[in-house]
């Protein structure tokens, strides 16, 4: 949930800056300014930041170079965890499974959400409709997972009943190796499509109407307008949406944990599931930390590449 409005910082941060210098306050001259009172105001947040973000980040990196089974102290083993990981078939399997998941999830989700956003923008403009479409996102992952686990049940799930009614063979959605990941991806597309659509919708609203007016005066068709105006102007928002959703998608866990637990065999053991099992199943915190460092690096790279190649921070409007 907290990912919700993570989105705006590059956009919003910039536009707010000018205001900062506007009101020079009486205390500006003194070098320390309001330092003492500021310390008081920032103290609780600082405690939280240092104790639960900063130190854990440093400690996580440190632990990744150690062998640590929680009993006793961590022993420094250099890069052994990393070399072991690169030779670890289960790791590569987890990466492959995760990438497959992200591809399916993001592919379908983005296309559907873009369609929904256009509908919200052009046709169904009521807030009520937007609210209804947002509903699945507000319900816990666990609940959504359980609901679909029931609806997709092999024997008596309604979806298989419908499939059966059409005379097609039943599908073991969560129980078969080839269906597990597409199914989990589909469930999360259902949960996130309305939310993603709202993010894109907000971007559509920021396109000034005069651009459309000019296009329609020039006699541009709807399709033409979409590809030559909407898409290019929407690009910065679309890139941000992609960065946020891809990063979130890589960290899929709840749905997997509640439905398949990583199975059947290794078919849905995504990377975060693998980290969880290493740490809490096998008490191998060093190895698990090294895995999460790798995940962290991958996410940073993904974000960087997306911003770079899709030029997310430049708008075609200017």
């Amino acid at each position, binding site marked *: 949930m907290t990912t919700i409005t993570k989105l705006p910082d590059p956009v919003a941060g910039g536009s707010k800056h000018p205001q900062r210098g506007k009101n020079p306050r009486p205390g500006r001259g003194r070098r320390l300014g309001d330092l003492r009172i500021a310390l008081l105001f920032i103290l609780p947040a600082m405690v939280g930041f240092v104790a639960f973000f900063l130190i*854990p980040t440093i400690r996580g990196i440190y632990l990744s170079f150690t062998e640590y089974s929680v009993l006793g102290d961590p022993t420094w083993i250099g890069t052994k965890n990393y070399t072991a990981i690169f030779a670890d078939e289960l790791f590569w399997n987890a990466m492959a499974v995760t990438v497959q998941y992200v591809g399916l999830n993001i592919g379908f989700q983005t296309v559907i959400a873009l369609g929904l956003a256009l509908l919200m923008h052009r046709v169904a403009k009521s807030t009520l409709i937007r609210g209804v479409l947002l509903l699945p996102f507000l319900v816990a992952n666990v609940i959504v997972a359980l609901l679909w686990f029931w609806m997709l049940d092999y024997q008596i799930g309604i979806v298989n009943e419908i499939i059966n009614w059409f005379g097609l063979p039943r599908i073991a959605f969560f129980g078969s190796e080839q269906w597990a990941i597409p199914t989990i991806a589909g469930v999360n597309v259902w949960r996130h499509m309305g939310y993603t659509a709202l993010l894109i919708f907000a971007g559509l609203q920021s396109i000034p109407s005069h651009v*459309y007016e000019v296009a329609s005066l020039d006699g541009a068709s709807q399709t033409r307008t979409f590809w030559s105006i909407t898409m290019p102007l929407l690009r910065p928002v679309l890139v941000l949406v992609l960065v946020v959703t891809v990063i979130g998608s890589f960290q899929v866990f709840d749905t997997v944990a509640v439905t398949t637990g990583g199975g059947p065999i290794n078919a849905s053991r995504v990377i975060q599931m693998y980290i969880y099992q290493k740490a809490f199943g096998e008490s191998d915190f060093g190895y698990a930390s090294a895995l999460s460092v790798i995940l962290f690096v991958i996410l940073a790279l993904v974000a960087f590449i997306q911003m770079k190649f899709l030029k997310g921070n430049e708008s075609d409007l200017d």
Partner: protein
Amino acid sequence: MTTSALSRKTPGSNPASKPARQGVHKKPFNWRRAGAWTLVVVAIIVTVAPFLWMLRTALSSNASLASNASNLLPADFSLGAFKRVLGLQTPEEAIAEGGSGAAINFWLYLRNSIIFASVTTAGQVFFSAMAAYAFSRLRWPGRNVVFGLFLATMMVPPIFTALPNFLMIKNLGLLNTFAGLALPFLFMTPFAIFFLRQFFLSMSREVEEAAMLDGAKHLRIFFQIVLPNAAAPLATLALLTFIGQWNEYFWPLLVGQDESVRVLTVGLGVFKSQSPQGAPDWSGLMAATLIAALPVLLLFIAFGKRVVNSIGFSGIK
């Protein structure tokens, strides 16, 4: 459902609330429009139908589900599932209806979820507001550096800090306590601080400056002027935080396994795997998920507009 046929010349003119109602042109029947509306209706059905199926299953008798798998109405209508979940059914009755007979402490999990979500929400919003005040209204050396550091942590994936945090909570002897559950969420999230700072920066400072000239101190200005003036964004943030905390699964799974502090999301996961006679208690499970989702659904019905528009807010600004 308001079906307003609008000219599409006013996109974005009124981003915050309802679409503007002016410019309604009577148009002849338009196939394109009909197609678009069909898609909207399909999207709404796809979104809502699973929730109705959840309700239908919860109102069914579990033993009859298998033989009425495709009947759209509840199979052998019964409130048994809800009674079972809420502990109002004897084990014999429960087994007769296809339940497991094992007691689940639903009320306890519900209480735990309420404590966990409200304590973390209150702490996070309040402390983040204080920090946001320091970042937007006070001048002190290193302010922008510290703010940048806070923002940078938004990039760190939760799993990355979860392992060391778990170890720390364990070392402090706080596993399976509310303190252990709540602490990492209690003080701040970079997002909350960022969200409020943006609002504080956009708020007019005239009243504050006048109060300052009258000799009011920062603490008074914060409590008596800034907080009341920021009531709307604070409420939005609190709502978003509460929903997020209510739905949190990973952290409580790590540190709150014990019955006494187990929250609903974790409890539901356990409930699912708790089916001794093979056939799961689907109606019980759906009744439980329905009740677990209820607080969020009620909040959404009451304040939905705020949530919907807050998501828009981000992208527009």
